């Protein structure tokens, strides 16, 4: 489902003497449907950078990232938008939403965007929010006022509302208590069972061991300092 080959990344800082900073080279791995791969490496090793490149949020310098039939590295913005709508989900660490929009609508958006009728979308979203222990009295409120853990769960609900064939998860269990953590782990397991290809960053080692079929240490993709 996801194939990454010879991927590299550099940042060019035009306003700081045009410094060119190579941050990754020769990244290579693939993820099959129903498989979960963990990205590992110390803080700053490039886990999030790699994940952002796969989502099309960072541009690659060279190489390819194929998700299904699409190569993210050469895809047009519209192709990436279509891929994000139908194929590639991303649960980031931070919730970014239009203020004042009710939680129900925030979570239903990926379903509505793919043509689910609003009544059916609402039912699915309500079930998911209930499962993630978001109290019903909060559903009609904007998540911007929620606690960190609640926002995290709204973000997860949004990422799991639509059954994406490929999923990127950045610390999905961070800031969750034991019970909610278990619910999220189950959701991820169910996604695997339905055949989703998953790439995750987990500082939670027990979660990583339980969910992931293999690990990719991104430290190996560090460009040589001398080069």
């Amino acid at each position: 489902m996801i194939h990454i080959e010879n991927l590299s990344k550099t940042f060019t800082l035009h306003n700081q003497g045009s410094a060119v900073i190579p941050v990754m080279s020769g990244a290579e791995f693939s993820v099959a449907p129903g498989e979960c791969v963990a990205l590992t490496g110390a803080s700053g090793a490039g886990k999030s950078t790699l994940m952002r490149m796969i989502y099309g949020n960072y541009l690659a310098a060279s190489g390819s990232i194929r998700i299904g039939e699409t190569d993210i590295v050469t895809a047009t913005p519209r192709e990436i938008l279509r891929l994000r709508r139908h194929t590639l989900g991303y649960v980031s660490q931070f919730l970014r939403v239009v203020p004042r929009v009710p939680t129900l609508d925030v979570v239903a958006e990926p379903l509505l965007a793919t043509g689910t009728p609003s009544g059916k979308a609402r039912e699915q979203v309500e079930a998911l929010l209930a499962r993630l222990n978001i109290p019903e009295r909060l559903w009609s409120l904007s998540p911007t006022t929620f606690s960190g853990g609640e926002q995290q769960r709204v973000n997860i609900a949004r990422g799991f509302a639509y059954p994406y064939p490929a999923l990127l998860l950045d610390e999905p269990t961070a800031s969750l208590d034991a019970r909610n953590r278990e619910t999220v782990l189950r959701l991820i397991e169910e996604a695997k069972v339905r055949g989703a290809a998953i790439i995750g960053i987990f500082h939670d080692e027990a979660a990583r061991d339980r969910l992931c079929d293999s690990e990719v240490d991104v430290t190996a993709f560090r460009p040589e300092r001398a080069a």
Partner: protein
Amino acid sequence: MNVSAGGNVGERLMAVGARHYGDIRASALDWITRVEIPGDRIDDRPTAFSGGMRQRLQIARNLVTGPRLVFMDEPTGGLDVSVQARLLDLLRGLVREMGLSAIIVTHDLAVVRLLADRLMVMKDGHVVETGLTDQVLDDPQHAYTQLLVSSVLQV
């Protein structure tokens, strides 16, 4: 300007053939409240409105006929931030439900991020960078875009 707020919105409907007074007034009221102008101001003249309200009235007036394409020049400039949020949500809903296409000119990068699918950065009459909105904002390639993004004040 010497026409009521409701008349301003209704005028556009009449221009595309609406003739039923009740229907026109109901649509005008619907759109006036959608842009968060209190419904009981429908018979007031825009000259009695604040700048932000006039701007919202203009938005209602332009969307009431269900256009396929709208151009908006700084649509959220000068708006109270709470109204700005409501308007962003309204525009996103219209894009999704009515298949509306919109081209927006703005200086507000937060608005760009929440509203736009694609982004074009211009300087001195030239497009210096273009692409997927979040990619251009998070990994800008051109010196000017990098300067813009790094100059945004954090709230």
